[in-house]
């Protein structure tokens, strides 16, 4: 009995270690003005080198752990955002990048905008800024990983 418990604990620890050391990200723009997207592209350039934290930008949501969201959610993009979120295998995290993703920003109250990202899907970490600098995005990802580490990643 004791041995089994120990084994389970070890397994959970190993899984948490793997998850917090190999976050693969997929990027989705749900109606952003492209400012944040350019900053995200700048973040994955050699100058900032996200691979040293194990971050890889993946094309397929099926391969990804972190959904990096930019922009307010428009009525058109709402369904797509939900679908992409549901295509990701759990455990998954959502990083909202930019003022619009956090609150709707300047697009707040527009007739074609649903609003902020966490009105549609649960968000784990927010990166403010219009647009946030690459350093801020890296900081957001690392804080997200710290949080996941602390929570032990509930599946």
């Amino acid at each position, binding site marked *: 009995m004791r041995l089994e418990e120990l084994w389970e604990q070890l397994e959970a620890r*190993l899984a948490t270690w793997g998850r917090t050391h190999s976050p693969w990200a997929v990027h989705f723009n749900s109606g952003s003005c492209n400012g944040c997207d350019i900053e995200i592209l700048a973040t994955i350039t050699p100058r900032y*080198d996200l691979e040293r934290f194990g971050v890889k930008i993946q094309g397929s949501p*099926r391969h990804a752990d972190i959904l990096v969201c930019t922009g307010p959610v428009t009525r058109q993009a709402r369904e797509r955002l939900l679908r992409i979120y549901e295509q990701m*295998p759990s455990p998954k995290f959502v990083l909202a990048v930019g003022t619009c993703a956090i609150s709707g920003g300047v697009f707040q109250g527009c007739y074609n905008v649903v609003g902020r990202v966490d009105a549609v899907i649960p968000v784990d970490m927010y990166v403010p800024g219009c647009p946030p600098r690459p350093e801020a995005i890296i900081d957001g990802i690392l804080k997200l990983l710290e949080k996941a580490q602390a929570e032990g990643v509930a599946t």
Partner: protein
Amino acid sequence: MQAVIALLIFPGGLCVLLLGLAYEWLDRKLMAQMQNRVGPRWYQPVADLVKLLAKQETMPNGVNPLLFIGLPLVGLASVLTAALYVPLVGLAPSYSFRGDLIVTIYLLGLLTFCMSLAGSNTLDRFSLMGALRALTQLFSYEVPFLLALLGPALAAGSWQIAEISAYAETHWLILTQPLGFVVALIGLMGKLELSPFDAPEAETEIVAGALTEYSGRGLALFHLSRDVALVVGLTLVAAFYLGGMANPLWFFGKTLLLLLVVSGLQALFARLRIDQTVGLWWRYGMLLVLLQWLLMIVWR
């Protein structure tokens, strides 16, 4: 008992898997250094593997569940079997029979075949396109690659990997067959779908190619089998062209040198379109190999 150890722990099985992960890290680190980056931490491939194995695996609608689960296993098994016939870490191959060169090459080809079958098993159009491209690419590089590896076989007068590498110990075939060496090394890059030949998984066009729908365990196994294929391929080319079997350290140095060249080429070239890939292999790769064979015949 000895056979079981050779199969599961050393030099097959576990040893090859760890070696594959180490080579993947080296490849990524070298690429990063060439792009002026820091690159991944040394345990990165292990962390990726653990994470993928611990992740949820979703089976999309409309797939054949048997194939969906079975194909990654068959792919990994085929490359692990191929590893038994090559002189891993410079030691004599665990198993050997006449004509095992052909079997090894086809076992390596089986991995690509499994990936494209896995892609065409799903209803997703991106994985279907990826599968189609992978097969097209298979038909273009396979023949020059095979002919390039048959050059040393012809020189040694045997189709057995052990005998060819024993012959290569006294004859450095890179000196007598430089064209064949170039085609074999670049053919290996095509086989592993490395950078200039990564049209089958071009993430800017077709998401992630044949493996788009795979998550968790299946993806982990396919990544792992590609790492093993990298080890087997590098071992094969090093044993054939760079002086056969040797002591493990020296042999490791040789494969490392090959890996350096491969990463350099990866960093140097941008992705080729699929028609450019086919054209490259059939127009130039094939021509180079045939020229090599002509030279060999004239030399005799």
